[in-house]
């Protein structure tokens, strides 16, 4: 499968053998200049998890980058040298969804947080997300992401509960905590690489269609870096034609087939469900 440059075993772990805790999985493709920041935030997050009494690990998977990322990752792995940090170097490009599915299989822990290599975690948010995921039994727990352009805050995303408007457009980013067992049960991320651009959206809609629970946790989970030439900003015009494919799969009758009560919830582990009491 891959070259390996860490002490953490790289074998796939079956769903039934996954342990309680969080695997932070960082897929990387040509994000050499951002890797140090994302990895540092992930390592701080597993310290925050440890402080809260929860086990966690970080796995970085390089998807055959061409920008020298592998050399940097080997260096970081040698420097870190911990069993809670692993690097996987793929010899051939799998594509983003293929790498994420690999992450679901490699994860030691049942909860998997996908962190794109150009984004960063807010460490204190991870234990809150984890408590929310385990307390609710949800398949996906996500929190606010602060949009950054350079050092300037420009907005928010993943900032509200899943609602019927999700059939029109996506507002839930992949930076979220996923129950790997439930994700593997439904087949993980879509394998059709032509849908890579819409993979986050397709995954969320697929979870909803399978009647899995999604919870929005009102905490800051991370910082999302808006960069020119990213996959989202670069490919939007040419991928618009695939938008109708997504809608055809999940909302052929508009939103008539959606049960609003099952779409999404708001939950914070300190105060419980927050979308009731009206």
């Amino acid at each position, binding site marked *: 499968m891959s070259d390996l440059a860490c002490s953490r075993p790289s074998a796939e772990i079956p769903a039934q053998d996954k342990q309680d805790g969080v695997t932070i999985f960082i897929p990387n493709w040509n994000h050499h200049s951002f890797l140090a920041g994302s990895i540092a935030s992930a390592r701080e997050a597993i310290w925050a998890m440890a402080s809260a009494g929860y086990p966690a690990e970080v796995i970085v998977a390089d998807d055959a980058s061409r920008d020298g990322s592998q050399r940097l990752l080997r260096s970081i792995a040698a420097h870190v040298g911990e069993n809670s940090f692993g690097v996987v170097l793929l010899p051939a490009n799998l594509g983003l969804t293929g790498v994420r599915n690999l992450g679901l299989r490699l994860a030691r822990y049942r909860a998997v947080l996908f962190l794109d290599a150009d984004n960063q975690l807010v460490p204190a948010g991870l234990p809150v997300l984890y408590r929310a995921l385990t307390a609710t039994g949800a398949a996906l727990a996500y929190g606010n992401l602060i949009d950054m352009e350079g050092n300037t805050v420009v907005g928010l995303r993943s900032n509200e509960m899943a609602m019927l408007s999700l059939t029109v457009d996506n507002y839930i980013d992949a930076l979220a905590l996923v129950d790997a067992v439930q994700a593997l049960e439904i087949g993980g991320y879509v394998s059709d690489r032509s849908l890579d651009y819409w993979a986050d959206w397709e995954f969320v809609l697929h979870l909803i269609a399978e009647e899995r629970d999604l919870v929005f946790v009102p905490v800051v989970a991370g910082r999302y870096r808006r960069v020119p030439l990213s996959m989202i900003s670069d490919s939007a015009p040419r991928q618009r034609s695939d938008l109708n494919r997504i809608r055809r799969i999940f909302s052929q009758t508009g939103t008539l087939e959606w049960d609003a009560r099952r779409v*999404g919830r708001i939950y914070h582990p300190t105060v419980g469900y927050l979308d009731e009491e*009206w």
Partner: protein
Amino acid sequence: MGGRAEWEPVLVVYPDQGNVFYETLARRLAAAARSSGTGDADRIRLEPASSLQDVDAGWLKTVTALIVNPAECALSGWRNVTRLERARRRIAVLADHVQTDWFALQFDTRLEIDAIIDVGFVPQEHEQPSGLPYIFLYNAALPDEAELIKTQTAGWRPLPWAVVGHATPERAALANDLVNHLGGEGVVFLPSLRPVRAKRGMLSPAALGRVLSASSFYVWCAHHRWAYYESFRFLEAMVAGAVPCKIESRHFAALAGLPNVYRSVPELDEHVRERGPAAMFDDARDYYLARGRLGDHLAQALARV
């Protein structure tokens, strides 16, 4: 203040299609009138705008109608709202900065308004552009709110801070600053702008109360560019025992004298380190409870119309 007012018939009308915030304001006004009046409490009525067709026409002719947010009341239909033309007088009750678009929209309802009551902490008489008689109503506590605030225990709580409102870049930056200075465990609920109502993915007043009851600080910044203090956020914090904190970088001087107003999050952080949440809450409590009760202020305001 403190005398018992003789109330003429009052009809408090609230929008039942718009923000629940205005319904809360209307309920507080009705409760204020009932709490301070000497007469029959039945002379004070509370009605949603959609039920105005059911109000007795003869009684309507005798009342002062306090119309909370006329623009949102109009969402229940012109037929309902225009029924208020029969009232003895019509007073728009508002709680916005007077130069915002929201304020201007209030006078586009085809309903003749006799006066404005502006509910808040800081009078805006000299800025308001409507040309109508303006009466300021200090947003003081109801008796039961005052009792609750007296008994609240503030301090360090499981959630260090909470930011709630609709999403704007400024509020996203506020959340980012709070993460950096007061810790990453705070609550951030900033969905896209839409009415705060059931089945809209918004927090109910009760849910907000539960969040604030677990939070040390309730922090906000304006969603517009004008100098304004959001007195209802102050009250929401106080009844939950959270410290109300406003960040106001542009108009700091205009809010001088109000407790816990800061130019920036680092300035708030510095004050937190110096005073701590319990003392900061006491500052806010001392300020607020020394300013009378809402019923007395309302009686005075209506006497001026």
